[in-house]
Every structure is written in C-alpha cells, then in structure tokens.
C-alpha cells in the first residue's frame, strides 16, 4: 500500500472496499479501548431536543400544550446526565484533548444558544414555552460540546 508521508500504513489497499465480509475494525475498535456509547447517546439527546424544538416552533406564536415538549425535554435531560456520568467514570481517556475541544465548543454553542434565546425573547415568547425552550437550548449547548470532545478524544492516546 502506498501511503502519504507520515501516514501509518495500517489501512486497506488503496481503492479497496474495506468493509465487506470479514471487514476491517469498526470505529469503536479503532478507538483501542472499550468506551460507553457517548456518541450514540449524545445524538439521541440532540434528536429529542430538536424534536421538542420543532413541536414548539410549529405552534408559535401561540402557546401549545407543553406536555409533549416537557416529556421530550425530560428524556433528553436524563440522557445527557446519564451520558456525562458514564463518560466521567472512564479513566483511560484523553481528558486533556476532551477539555480542549469541549471547552471551545461550549463557548461557541453558548453563543449560538444565547442568540437563539434572544430571538425567542425578541419575538415575544413568554411563560412556560420560554422556560421549556430555554432548558432545551441549555441541553443543546451542553450536549454538542460533550459529543465533539468525545469524538476527538476517543482516538487520542490516553492522558493527552
């Protein structure tokens, strides 16, 4: 296999299909150690928050029944907490890289969430709808940095 300078030559032959029968290792295997399903849980959390946001946005500017949105919010919050807890128990992990990526992502997504919050307030969203939207934005702003930090750190040497 011809590889670019400095690229480890442990990939399949150029142009080959690496995933068919017998296949090459999965991304989880390439991470080199067992890790909780942080990416899957974070994506599920994101999907719940987005679904709740769509439900509320579809009813604006009226105040919709909040039950479905609160249920989605609660489930998303539980998933995020469980995900963070599961990740915090991992010892063999590149926590330095995780903090680097998650920290900058948190800054970026706090700005984005803040802008969205401003738009909702500016557009006259009030009361329970605003509270639910705000909490959804908070989960969104925490979930994405967790996801991005994990996605990078899982492939880095532990301790970096």
């Amino acid at each position, binding site marked *: 296999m011809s590889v670019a300078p400095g690229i480890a030559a442990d990939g399949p032959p150029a142009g080959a299909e690496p995933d068919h029968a017998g296949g090459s290792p999965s*991304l989880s295997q390439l991470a080199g150690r067992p890790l909780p399903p942080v990416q899957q849980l974070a994506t599920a959390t994101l999907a719940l928050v987005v679904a709740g946001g769509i439900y509320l946005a579809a009813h604006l500017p009226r105040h919709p029944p909040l039950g479905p949105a609160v249920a989605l919010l609660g489930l998303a919050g539980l998933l995020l907490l469980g995900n963070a807890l599961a990740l915090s128990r991992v010892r063999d992990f590149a926590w330095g890289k995780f903090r680097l990526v998650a920290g900058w992502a948190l800054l970026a997504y706090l700005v984005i969430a803040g*802008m969205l919050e401003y738009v909702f307030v500016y557009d006259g969203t009030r009361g329970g709808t605003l509270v639910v939207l705000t909490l959804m934005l908070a989960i969104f702003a925490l979930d994405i940095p967790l996801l991005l930090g994990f996605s990078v750190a899982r492939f880095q040497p532990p301790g970096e």
Partner: protein
Amino acid sequence: MAQAAQEVGLAPTGVIAPVDGAPPIPAPVTIVPVKGLPIVAVVIAGMIVAIATNQIWALDFYHVVGGGLWTGIDLFVGLIVGPIIGSMPVPARVEFSKRFMPKMVLIMPTLVTMTLGAGWQLARHLGNLDAGYPHHGWLVASYIVVGVMAVIALGLLEPANLAVLFELRKERPNGLLIEKLMRVFIYTAGVTGLMQVATLVIMTKLATG
C-alpha cells in the same frame, strides 16, 4: 508561483519538500482557519443588523444567499465531490481532507446560521409562522427536514470532520481511521445532500404560494 514554491522548498501540494532529497514533511493541519474568522464575524454581524432592523430585503438576501449556498454546497459535496473522494486512494483523500475540511468548519456553520436566522425572522415578519398561514404545513415540513439534517450534521458529520483533523495532526496518523471517518463524512454529506432536494421543493412551493 510554482517556481517560487520550488525555490523555498514547497511542493505544489503544500507539502514542505526539503531540497536534499529527504522525505517530505506534511504541512501542519489547521483545525479552524483563523484568517477566515473576521469574514465570518462580518457576515454574522450583518445578519444581526438585518434581524434587528427587520429590513425585508436584507433578511431575504441573507436567507436566499445563505440557503442557496448551503443547498448547493451540500448537493455538490454529497453527490459529486463525495463519490469522487470515495474513489480516491487513501493518501489522496488525506491530502484533500487537510485542505478541504478546515474550510468546511467555518463555511457550513456560517451558512446555516445565515439561512436559519434570517429565514425565521423573515417568516415571522411575513406572518408565515402563524398556524393560520395557508402553507403552514409546508413550513413545519421544512422544520422537520432541517431538524433531521441538523441531527445528522451535528451528530455524525461534524464529529467525523473534527476527528479527522485531529488525527491528521498526529506524527503518524492512522490511515485506516482516517478512511473510516472520511467514509462517515461522505455518507452523511450524501444524505444531507439528498435531503436538500426536499428543502428545494418546500422552499420553491412556499415562495410561489
């Protein structure tokens, strides 16, 4: 230009090639192209002014330009560039990724913010958000399409993009890992590209009534 590059030991691909015949040293990989940040800041500031002043032309400009570019890039990358990258050998993919992915880190979030921010305000200003609007169902359909694309982009595409960039910064990047992550990137870009077709249908329907 090429001559100047040879004089300072730079290969046309951007790889630093020492003149003594030693193996070339890969150029360092940028995660976020800092030079592009002022452009992003100006674009976002313009969008905030458009929203704050509620100027219909400015809102329409931001929504149409942002949406057109977002849709076009998604379709082009997902359906044209993606399959081409997929057929390239791993070293070529790596060299392409080094130059392509940092730019996407800045371009796509900016376009998405422009499109959605200005679009939401435009719809509110025109009364399209109201449930009584005759095409409200189409609007909700657009929320769903954007929502699905957001989950795919933020849950799969962007993590793969960042992981590739960090892998490329290693002294000895893992070619297999890069190929796997690029595959995720290409597939998800293809899916979002196809979903953009639905966006085109919905938006043209809304625009023409």
